[in-house]
């Protein structure tokens, strides 16, 4: 089944967390990179510039110069409201994800500074059930937005998600409406809202808060779209063109503002804040 293969590709093969002292094979150019060098280089391949995926912790540390609070809402935790069971129980999947990531959920909302600019930073972690959005991710987004409004500071969100979390079914779908309403409130309060779409940003996350940014940035070569490429291929029964749904493709089609190399990301964010704030 194509869909399954696609999801396997998204979640299974790629390793996001990189241990110290190991050699990593670049997924793009296949050259070997020493893990310490990779981490020092913001997880960008020194040979070909390929951007490896980042954990939420790595991301927060790479963006914020000063972390005031790493996790603003640590008490929000997922439950299994539908007692969902597929080949595994949702409860067990949650437990595994927690153990693997050390996180409570697929999003962390931090408070800190980029140079001298105070910001709220929402970061999704793809390792936690494919970065899928359930009730907690939606609620964290809303609270992050409220925190930004209350403190009159920009809200910056890094997305990395396969979409809505199926195990919370319709409740997950409703998080799309919920987060969109929160963006409306950011607009009403003239709060700067920037989204940075990283690999991958799909489905329900893409079709809600990700594409509602005042400014939408994407990391190079990230897969970004509504429907997954396999689903599209199966529906239209033709092969997709090279580079389809990649960040560069979206830029060309006018769907995003810019593709920014990870090394320039912090500077770009800071400049945009200065150009729109104060």
């Amino acid at each position, binding site marked *: 089944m194509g869909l399954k293969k696609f999801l396997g590709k998204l979640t299974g093969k790629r390793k996001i967390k990189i241990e110290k002292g190991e050699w990593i094979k670049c997924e793009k150019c296949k050259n070997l990179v020493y893990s310490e060098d990779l981490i020092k280089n913001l997880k960008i391949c020194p040979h070909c510039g390929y951007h490896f995926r980042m954990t939420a912790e790595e991301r927060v540390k790479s963006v914020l110069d000063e972390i005031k609070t790493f996790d603003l809402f640590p008490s929000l935790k997922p439950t299994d409201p539908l007692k969902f069971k597929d080949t595994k129980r949702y409860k067990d999947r949650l437990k595994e994800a927690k153990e693997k990531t050390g996180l409570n959920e697929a999003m962390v909302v931090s408070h800190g500074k980029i140079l001298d600019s105070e910001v709220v930073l929402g970061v999704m972690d793809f390792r936690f059930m494919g970065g899928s959005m359930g*009730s907690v991710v939606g609620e964290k987004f809303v609270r992050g937005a409220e925190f930004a409004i209350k403190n009159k500071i920009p809200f910056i969100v890094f997305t990395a998600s396969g979409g809505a979390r199926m195990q919370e079914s319709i409740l997950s779908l409703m998080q799309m409406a919920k987060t969109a309403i929160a963006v409306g409130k950011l607009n009403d309060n003239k709060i700067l809202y920037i989204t940075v779409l990283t690999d991958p940003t799909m489905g329900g996350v893409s079709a809600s808060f990700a594409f509602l940014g005042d400014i939408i940035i994407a990391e190079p070569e990230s897969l970004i779209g509504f429907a997954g490429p396999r689903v599209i291929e199966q529906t239209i029964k033709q092969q997709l063109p090279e580079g389809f749904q990649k960040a560069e493709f979206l830029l060309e089609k006018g769907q995003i503002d810019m593709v920014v190399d990870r090394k320039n990301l912090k500077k770009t964010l800071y400049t945009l804040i200065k150009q729109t704030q104060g």
Partner: protein
Amino acid sequence: MENTTVEIDIEQELQKLSSRIEFLREKIKKGEKHRIGELVELRRRFKELAKRKMSSLSAWERVQLARHPKRPHTIDYINNIFTDFVELHGDRKFGDDKAIIAGFAFFEGEPVAVIGHEKGRDTKEKIERNFGMPHPEGYRKAIRVMRLAEKFRRPVFTFIDTPGAFPGIGAEERGQSQAIAESLLVMGELRVPIIATVIGEGGSGGALALGVADRVLMLENSIYSVISPEGCAAILFKSQENAPEAAESLKITAENLKELGVIDEVIKEPLGGAHLQPVKMYRLLKRALRVNLKCLKRFPVEELIQKRQEKFYSMGIYQEK
């Protein structure tokens, strides 16, 4: 699925009975009064069979009913509940998407806006309407008409019936995600009452894009889900053949959704499903729309929006400790 063949037989039998009842009624109207006894008997059999069928419907059987080829579509509700519908076309940016119908009409004499997915009835129309799977321009047309409704202070009625937003090359190139996201945002703050009704299939984000409403109603045999049972089965269960199981797990029936607080009201369908007695269905839905509209009109606009936003903010179940 055990019983599947039995259920299909019942369905066929119900269809047969239902058309014979219609036929007899016409005859009796034309003067064949002596056949009343026959009609009464037919009706009794219909009722008995329909009750047997409806009393034990599985989630998967609801899916079949929600997708039933004869189930009334948006166009049918527009023609039978509203008058003087004037259809508006195009998103002013790219094209006109026939998977979504939008325009102004009168509801019991009152001017309103109407927007809904339309799947199409015969093969040609289905293709034209892309089986009710919109492209971004469909959502942008919907947004345009919602803004017009806001400008002229007209309530908005939406009808949801789609397998989902279309997964295709053009749809992605033209910003399917952005179009859906914007529709959610616009509906979340639109300054007029919105009543959404799920009349058949509520397929994921493509359905929700017309579903951020003050009142969300759902016909008894319609479904509303984050992903199709087939899609979910393919990803989380072993294969697409596990769709019935997935349908059960996903909790996609009107009753389930009412319990979860995601919808506001379940609209009863005529016995056996909307497709068997469409005229009765129009009447039942019309009444529900009337009652809900009347209720919403009591609120000042600020309060209306606040209530709408609070409702969606409260959706989701999590622990906090």
